[in-house]
């Protein structure tokens, strides 16, 4: 187990571990081995499989950028925007082991111009928004140090 992350609440509960080196939490079908994120717990979506048993799995916490962009306009609710709105970078990242592409924001301080398709990134936790209960953390992608 890695060290706990700085105190914070999950913006979406049960979707990722609250650790310094976090993982997205998915499920794996016990019958055919297909991974799911978000979690699938009732029935397998592989048309060749009738599996109904799933185990929770930690997805790979590194992957390669499939593509990237940014959000220059304030998204509507349920996005909780800071005032004034701060634009942010977004990446779609391919997890090699799971052969799955997962979208997410890119860690603060990373410029769009630093990114390239194929670049290696890792999962981190950062605040998505802050309210009276505290900081609500979400997964974000950050280039690995040796990725350039």
């Amino acid at each position, binding site marked *: 187990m890695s060290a706990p992350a700085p105190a914070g609440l999950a*913006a*979406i*509960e049960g*979707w990722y571990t609250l650790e310094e080196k976090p993982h997205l939490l998915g499920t794996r*079908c016990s019958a*055919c*081995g*297909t*991974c*799911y*994120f*978000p979690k699938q717990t009732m029935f397998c*979506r*592989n*048309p*060749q*499989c009738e599996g109904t048993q799933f185990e929770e799995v930690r997805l790979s916490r590194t992957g390669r950028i*499939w*593509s*990237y*962009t*940014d*959000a*220059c*306009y304030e*998204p*509507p*609710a*349920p*996005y*909780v*925007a800071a005032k004034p709105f701060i634009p*942010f970078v*977004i990446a*779609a990242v391919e997890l090699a*082991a*799971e*052969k*799955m*592409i*997962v*979208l*997410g*924001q890119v860690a603060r301080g990373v410029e*769009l111009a630093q990114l*390239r*398709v*194929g670049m290696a990134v890792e999962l981190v936790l950062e605040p*998505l928004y802050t309210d009276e209960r505290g900081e609500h953390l*979400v997964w974000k992608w950050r280039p690995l140090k040796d990725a350039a």
Partner: protein
Amino acid sequence: MSREVAILGVGMHPWGKWGRNFVEYGVHAARAALRDAGVTWQEVQYVSGAATMRCGYPGYVAGATFAQALGWQGAQINTSYAACASGSQALAAARERILSGACEVALVVGADTTPKGFLAPQPGYRPEDPDWVRFHLGITNPTYFALYARRRMDLYGATLEDFTAVKIKNAAQGVHNPNARYRRAFTREEVNKSAMVADPLRLLHVCATSDGGAALIISSLEFARRRGAAGAPRIAGISTVTPRFASAEVEMPDIATDSAVAAAGHSFRASIAARAYEEAGLGPEDLSLAEVYDLASSMELDWYEYIGLCKTGDAEALLRSGATTVGGRIPVNASGGLACFGEAVPAQALAQVCELAWQLRGQAGARQVAGAKVGITANQGLFGHGSSVIVKR
């Protein structure tokens, strides 16, 4: 037995931000289509409506709403909802009625009134809804468009100028379309200097949401012959396919793709037109023109590849060759496309078919593709709705 039906008439209410009741646009379009067809409302035996989710209960039951507005006359009805593919689904339902012999002539109609700004999901804490999740993370529709655009730049050498060239090409067509919302040409500078929305896409690369309505009168070939319309354009294929597992493409509104470990990854978008071609017994080489879903200018390039106009990675070369401009080998979005219309969700797939009908009848005026004989439409609705229609004469 022929699987074809005739398009006897088409009609639209101009796209815009009119702010009126969607029923008004639908009735306007329906009456225009009836006049165009030379068919009276009393003769229509089946009404197939494309639903809208933004206009309350009347929108959920669009088929009945339009039938009542035109005056109840006992026709059987259907309402289809398939997000941006709703129009094709409504058209497919009407075609099956005709082909089964259950009716001879049908009205297919869709219309929408849209709010300003981003389309947003229902409120609350609803992580079971992928549409809620992605908005909560700040991932809007332009994010998805831009991910594909940026990937084209990094992998295939697409440039900002290519995306802008698509916009300029389509805007030049929209100037000549009385039903388009934006009817003016744009310069390269105007497009490139418009506000950045989602890098690399500027505001003028991304389509707006619009009000509008579109309608078709379709019939059996026998009914068309009796009306002296044996030469009317015919629907030769409709695809309403769903994806195949594992769906390997980043798809709005999902936050992740299927995992392609236990089953191979498939391209949904490439499968959409393939089914329509198969049904029509035609291929990309037979096309005179195509109407594709340029939700962003960059996506028109993706569609060149999905509908088989060129190989993956060759769309930029096809665009730069001028082949997809009116006057070229295979004009795309001769109507002006979404760049000039903005999207009126339940009407848009029908508007694409309206354009093909006008083009194949040689009635597209200054937009006309010379000698148009076969056209295809292609689009995609959220949550796995393929939509492609082939029209021929």
